[in-house]
């Protein structure tokens, strides 16, 4: 394996049992340790992560403190710290399959035209959720995949998500430069209790900005660990609203067209939502609210 990979693990006050699984997933990678480094970005956790995370099994591992709260800030710090040619982003609740880094290296070689990629994300619930939750599992970053899907432009189905997102160094650098020029884009990710959720898309789309492609590959698999608190209607409603909100804000920040529904259209949408069963109605309305919030949003200042 010729290219060094940098695994960037961003965390803030992780659930210890999830973090252990994440670390275990990294420890059991079949890729030789000298082919990758591990950078753990501790994003102002109350208890420093280094106190309960043992990284001594990897000589190329280090913990970096990032004091500014926000997943985007943590990722940016990771990009600055990374020395690898391929950057692999891992959250504190994602477990990479043992061959993930080997497959990533293979894809990087076989697909010189692809700049950002990911794979299949399976969900693993701490507790069995109610059946309706599965309808909204994309909000929990669960991404099924039937075959490789790739594209040189943003197309649904080919867009990798943040769990196990791999980008080439040039894409990471482009993201760094873009956010320096347009700081409002830092707000697209979760910050503390705010659930913004499009920072990973923004990063992946930097590949498209460089005329590289994006894709999702069957060979890459990660497990997303989901605590009970994320399967409640209140949480998912909030996640839905933030999702719709940040999607609109992302589109605007990137200068893409945003559909602004007319007042009549919005009323029709609300009326249609009323005919849905209770849970779907609340989720639909949350989406409409988020979309409107995004359209009305006038920037952070």
């Amino acid at each position: 394996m010729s290219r060094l990979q940098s695994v960037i693990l961003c965390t803030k006050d992780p659930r210890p049992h999830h973090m252990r699984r994440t670390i275990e997933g990294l420890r059991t990678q079949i890729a030789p340790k000298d082919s990758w480094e591990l950078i753990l970005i501790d994003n102002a956790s109350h208890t420093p992560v280094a106190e309960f995370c043992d990284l001594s099994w990897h000589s190329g591992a280090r913990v970096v403190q990032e004091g500014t709260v926000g997943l985007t800030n943590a990722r940016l710090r990771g990009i600055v710290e990374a020395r690898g040619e391929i950057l692999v982003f891992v959250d504190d609740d994602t477990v990479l399959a043992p061959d993930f880094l080997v497959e990533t290296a293979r894809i990087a070689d076989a697909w010189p035209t692809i700049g950002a990629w990911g794979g299949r994300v399976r969900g693993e619930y701490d507790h069995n959720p109610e059946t309706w939750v599965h309808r909204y599992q994309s909000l929990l970053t669960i991404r099924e995949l039937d075959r490789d899907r790739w594209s040189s432009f943003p197309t649904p189905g080919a867009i990798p998500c943040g769990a196990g997102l791999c980008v080439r160094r040039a894409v990471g650098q482009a993201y760094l430069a873009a956010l320096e020029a347009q700081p409002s884009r830092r707000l697209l990710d979760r910050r503390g209790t705010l659930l913004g959720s499009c920072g990973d898309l923004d990063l992946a789309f930097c590949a498209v900005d460089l005329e590289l492609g994006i894709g999702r590959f069957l060979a890459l698999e990660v497990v997303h660990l989901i605590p009970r608190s994320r399967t409640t209607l209140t949480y998912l409603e909030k996640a839905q609203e933030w999702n719709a909100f940040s999607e609109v804000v992302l589109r605007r920040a990137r200068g893409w067209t945003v559909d602004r529904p007319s007042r009549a259209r919005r009323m029709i949408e609300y009326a249609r939502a009323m005919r849905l069963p209770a849970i779907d109605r609340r989720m639909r309305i949350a989406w409409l609210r988020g979309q409107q919030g995004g359209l009305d949003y006038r920037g952070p200042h």
Partner: protein
Amino acid sequence: MSQTAPGHAVDISVLVCTRNPRPRHLERAIEALRAQTLAPKSWELLLVDNGSDAPLAARFDLSWHPHARHVREDDAGLVPARVCGIRESSGKSLVFVDDDNVLNRDYLERALQIGAEQPHLGAWGGAVVGEFEETPPDWIHDVRGLLSLREVPQNRWTNLPVLKAAPCGVGLVVRRRVALAYADGVSTRPLRRRLGPRPGELTGHDDFDLAFSACDLGLGMGRFTALVATHLIPPERTDLAYLERMQECTAYSELLFWSIRSKRPPIPSRLRLFIDHIRSLGLSRVRRRLRRAELAGLKMARRDFVQGRFE
């Protein structure tokens, strides 16, 4: 005229499918092939005569090319002509050229290069510029898609079945296995043959059907800035009545295309068609006529879909 030696696989087979061509156009198309920078030894040329009234073999000399031949397919229609060409060809990739398509000199060379650099692609094409015999009306820009004119501001490719990246039929390049899968597919599903124009019909979605066959095999398709072809457009093709008919046929075949390829084809409701009809009143005269033609095509396709003729 020598035949391609059996078992000799050239890099590219160029298939020119034609029926009663305008002689001047076909001559231009052939001249452009003759001027290709790719050495003739690495490609073959098949002129597929789709039942022209005066056989083309006697009228067009291909002896300048070491691997060129005339093929005749009497089953009228672009799809049978292409299938015949595919079966007769031996190239690792196939390039489809219509009798009014003039390829840039480096087209074949660059097409080969793209295929080598991107082994995951199965179908690709490029930009198409129009050469009008007479200055066209101003509004022609609105209907450039109908005339197969394509701007390609940047390379675009995907293995997902979306029209946004699909190459059109002008200079369409496909890998051999994609072509064979298409030929088999259209023989087993006759409805797919209806996507291609037959004599007297105007346009179809058979080009996209062929390009999408790449995605069926898990390969990609794309449009590339490096590939440029010219489409020769005679005055009658910029006539509004002609374009209206073309618009109607295109709208019809697009719906047929999605009925074949998608589990949920975008069949418009009658209410939607009615609303769009009313809305078209707000358009300028030319746009209104074209929009009405499109709606007529959709309405016809909707009727056929409802009556189960798309199954």
